């Protein structure tokens, strides 16, 4: 990227809320249902029907507002956003215009090792539109209205984002926050989270904003990253060639990696917002707003920062642990037993256990593994009762069976051998069988000691105490 320019990005994120029913009627809010089976006169916009707001939608949206440090407008209303498109049978979308439910917040995100604060202009509630299926064989399009009236929150950021990496960090943080709060399934591939991207560039050091271009059809967070870099480079090229950026909407084509003009400013939509006469003012009490605030759990970025400072874990490990709500809760439950070091717990979870989760494509909560059993197993290693290798054997059992690790150690005879006599016999045997390695060691290749200790461990069937074995191997060779 040309360093004479600064990129300025603002994002509008739409997230579907995982309520049982739609926002204004009792139809099921469900992905993948048979077409047009979750529809009724209200969500189809038939004359004479009246929408009634779902209280769960309000509560979920306020949760997100608190998580993004917003002011909550307890007294607010709905407005109609008018536009003609066949995925919208009413020809207007019920949204919020001048009094959003939440506004003036911010979100702290981690970009590299830096904390970056991104302003949140507003979060409002609105209804989703239906889906059009294009079918050439029918010479027309098919309209499925199941998604009409599915509750959405729209989160609008301030133009505080300065790079594609910052945009990606912001979007990832919104994604994990939605999952932590349990208010959206946040599945990108099902379109539960979508985003519109506004990009402008300006000379480095300038305080005025350049003309912004809006990009539609950005269907994943990694696509947002590509789309931002592409659009910034396009604008810089235009400016460098003496051209001018015009306000317009462009469509991102992720397969081709380019965007094309969708509509110019002259063709911009005029949504003619006005208060929806079908819906009265609604009020959420201060007590209710405070009650919802008290229910917000510690969120991923705060957790990551705490793991780094409290447990002295690396940024990368802390983030991996905090990213998934279930993994974080499990990690904290193991630490809470006070039996073992946070660093070892982190290593086991992010190492052997993560491998299993990836192989089985499941969550840590799907395993029979309990925090108590994992803590006990790790403490046995830390007390040197068992070797690390024996720990892996124990883990294999406790992953799928709730069994006391001490039992397993006894049954399988895994207790570490620290008896000098027994270990000496092993060392002698291994040294006798590996004359070349012994010679190498004597010639200064001291790193072969690892190989020799490994052979001793193998000989002891993983039960030898590796630290003792190492000292004994070195002493024995030096005596030779």
């Amino acid at each position, binding site marked *: 990227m040309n360093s004479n320019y600064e990129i300025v990005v603002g994002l509008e994120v739409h997230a579907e809320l995982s*309520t*049982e*029913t739609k926002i204004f*009627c*009792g*139809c*099921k809010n469900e992905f993948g249902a*048979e*077409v*047009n*089976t*979750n*529809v*009724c*006169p209200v969500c*189809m916009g*038939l004359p004479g029907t009246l929408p*009634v*707001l*779902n*209280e*769960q*939608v*309000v509560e979920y949206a306020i949760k997100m507002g608190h998580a993004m440090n917003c002011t909550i407008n307890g*007294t*607010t*209303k709905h407005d109609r956003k008018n536009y*003609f*498109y*066949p995925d919208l049978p009413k020809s207007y979308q019920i949204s919020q215009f*001048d*009094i959003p439910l939440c506004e003036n917040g911010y979100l702290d995100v981690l970009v590299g090792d830096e904390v970056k604060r991104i302003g949140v202009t507003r979060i409002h509630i609105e209804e989703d539109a239906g889906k*059009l*299926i*294009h*079918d050439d064989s*029918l*010479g*027309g*399009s*098919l*309209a*499925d*209205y199941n998604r009409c009236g599915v509750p959405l929150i729209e989160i609008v950021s301030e133009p505080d984002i300065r790079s594609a990496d910052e945009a990606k960090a912001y979007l990832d943080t919104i994604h994990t926050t939605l999952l932590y709060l349990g208010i959206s399934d946040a599945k990108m591939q099902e379109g539960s989270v979508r985003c519109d991207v506004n990009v402008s560039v300006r000379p480095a050091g300038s305080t005025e904003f350049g003309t912004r271009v809006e990009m539609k059809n950005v269907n994943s967070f990694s696509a947002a990253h590509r789309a931002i870099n592409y659009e910034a480079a396009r604008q810089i090229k235009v400016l460098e060639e003496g051209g001018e950026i015009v306000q317009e909407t462009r469509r991102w084509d992720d397969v081709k990696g380019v965007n094309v003009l*969708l509509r110019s400013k002259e063709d911009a939509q*005029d949504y*003619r917002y006005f*208060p929806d006469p079908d*819906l*009265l*003012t*609604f*009020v959420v009490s201060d007590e209710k707003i405070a009650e919802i605030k008290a229910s917000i759990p510690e969120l991923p970025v705060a957790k990551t920062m705490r793991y780094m400072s409290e447990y002295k874990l690396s940024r990368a490990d802390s983030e991996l642990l905090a990213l998934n709500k279930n993994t974080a809760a499990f990690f904290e439950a193991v630490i809470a037993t006070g039996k073992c070091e946070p660093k070892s717990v982190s290593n086991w979870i992010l190492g052997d256990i993560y491998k299993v989760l990836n192989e089985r494509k499941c969550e840590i909560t799907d395993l029979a593994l309990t925090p108590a059993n994992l803590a006990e197993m790790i403490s046995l290693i830390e007390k040197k009762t068992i070797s690390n290798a024996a720990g892996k054997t124990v883990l294999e059992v406790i992953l799928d069976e709730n069994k006391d690790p001490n039992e397993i150690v006894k049954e399988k005879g895994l207790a570490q051998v620290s008896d000098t006599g027994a270990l000496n016999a092993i060392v002698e045997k291994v040294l006798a069988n590996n004359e070349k390695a012994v010679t190498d060691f004597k010639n200064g290749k001291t790193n072969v000691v690892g190989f020799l200790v490994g052979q001793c461990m193998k000989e002891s069937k993983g039960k030898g105490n590796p630290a003792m074995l190492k000292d004994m191997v070195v002493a024995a060779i030096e005596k030779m």
Partner: protein
Amino acid sequence: MEIDIMRLAKLAKLSIPEDKVEEFRKKMEDIIQMVENLPDLDTQGSLVDPTNTMELRKDEVQPSFPRNEMLQNAPYTAAGCILIPKVVD
């Protein structure tokens, strides 16, 4: 008040033949004149009214409408959907 009838037609996705523009412009002017004659409502800058609020609904599923009945409202249907002229945006 100047009325751009072609712009309104575009927003409403209506096609108005050239020779009808004047007629519609006149009609629209009459409608706006009628609305302007209504007494002003003092909205005090905002239309929220905390003295007249709505009751919210519990998040409980109610039966939806039978699809075959719903589709009877549409002139053309196919594969359980309403069939509309092809749209590309």
